[in-house]
């Protein structure tokens, strides 16, 4: 019956990050039951860079592997979704960041996880989310002179003929 005494992984993450960056860094924390019960944190946009570095470097968190990152257009806001894995502690973590719909911008984590580089470029390319501090934020799938961001819900195809 030790489980009642021990903190769940989610509580542990919240406490650890809360101690370091204050309560305000985490906007929300919950278990996402639809995604195989993955602990999910909604991190405040301004503090994301420091929290990200902490997620990777802190011994008790140690999320050294970025599985996936992408953005979602919800029409009234944009969201970033990151999925991490810690091979050391064998634990999953999802992180979300809410961005404004107009000029969405979030700091790049490409220098923390090298695997974020192309995914951030892809997100920029298709959704128009700007990643501050990215070493080479250019289009990756579409031609450089493409107009607009196709994955946005209000995207209209630009036609030269019209």
């Amino acid at each position: 019956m030790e489980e009642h005494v021990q903190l769940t992984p989610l509580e542990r993450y919240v406490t650890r990050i809360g101690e370091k960056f204050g309560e305000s860094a985490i906007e929300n924390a919950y278990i996402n039951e639809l995604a195989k019960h993955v602990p999910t944190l909604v991190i405040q946009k301004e503090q994301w860079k420091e929290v990200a570095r902490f997620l990777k470097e802190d011994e008790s968190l140690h999320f050294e592997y970025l599985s996936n990152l992408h953005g979602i257009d919800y029409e009234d806001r944009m969201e970033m979704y990151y999925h991490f894995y810690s091979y050391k502690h064998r634990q999953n973590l999802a992180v979300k960041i809410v961005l404004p719909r107009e000029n969405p911008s979030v700091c790049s984590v490409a220098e923390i996880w090298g695997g974020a580089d192309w995914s951030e470029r892809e997100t920029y390319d298709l959704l128009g989310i700007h990643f501050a501090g990215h070493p080479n934020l250019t289009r990756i799938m579409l031609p450089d002179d493409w107009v607009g961001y196709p994955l946005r819900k209000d995207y209209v195809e630009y036609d030269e003929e019209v």
Partner: protein
Amino acid sequence: MLRNQPPTESVISPAPEIRTEEMLLNVGPQHPSTHGVFRLVVKIEGETIKEAVPVMGYLHRGTEKIAENLTYTQIIPYMDRLDYLAAMTNNYVLCHAVETMMGLAIPERADYLRIIAMELNRIASHLVWWGTYLLDIGAMSPFLYAFRDRESILDLLNELCGARMTFNYMRIGGVKWDAPPGWIEKVANFVQYMKKELPNYHKLVSGNEIFIHRLAGIGQYDADTALHYSLSGVMLRCTGIKWDLRRDESYSLYDRFEFEIPTAVEGDCLARYWLRLAEIEQSLRILEQAVQQFPADGEIMGKVPRVIRPPAGETYVRIESPRGEIGVYIASQGKDKPWRLKLRRPSFMNLQILPHLLVGANMANMVAILGSIDIVLGEVDA
């Protein structure tokens, strides 16, 4: 005149005076060794690569955008066209994501059919890699053997679902077609045949000294680098990390089978070569057990609502494809179409390390390093 005389000193050691200059070399997008439409702009000095810039997107069809206007079942054929060498795992990962959201139970028989199809496809995919990789580095005949055996697998899959490569076989809640009479026996026979055939592959290539010297120590990196660049599959296991989602985050019925996760520590092209062949062996083991355990009868479709509407919310699932970790993210608003579908493609993620591996490498090794990553461009560009 000069040629007949013994070489003078200036002829023997002109090395310091050879003027080299940087030059830009364009590779692809139409080149057999890029395995599709992939372009590399390589800056070389002499024969050493100074910089390599990958250019992609030639095969970008906007699958994620198209999917937003399709029902979940309609997306399945699009998944076939991402990684067209291993479409079964792509089929599965999408169905698995929706089933996870809806909490659907899959009939046992359907799960076994899925696993048999996926493992057959994994072998076929590794065979294509084996053949084309050796073709890349200059051996012609292995390609013919690999494609002969792969064709037997494609025949089996064709019999199961009516297509050689773009299967469209799985459905949310089960599979579309039951195994035709005698099919399971044919799979069992193939497994026995392939088990006998695999040692010949090693005999033909693996022990060849030229081949070993060609690949050992090429394209090498360590475990920390692999994790930093989000590598998965063989690209990760070749650095000594024992990690396979089939076992470590088991899905479907994989926890019912005994199999090893082959790993190596060298992290070079040769290690990746050995691992892919070792994985064929393990897939054959799984197939052998699956054929034995295959239920005599049962449903192939679970109880699924007529219109598939996952509950509002989001999910992210990942499974082990032949190329590594393939993941699907779905944001649902409770409608019959996804609000957002995101595909985590292993080829795209694994390719990220290429520019770093190429810097300082010899130009002649470029094709060997690129080939060892095992990319499919349909998946890189999505």
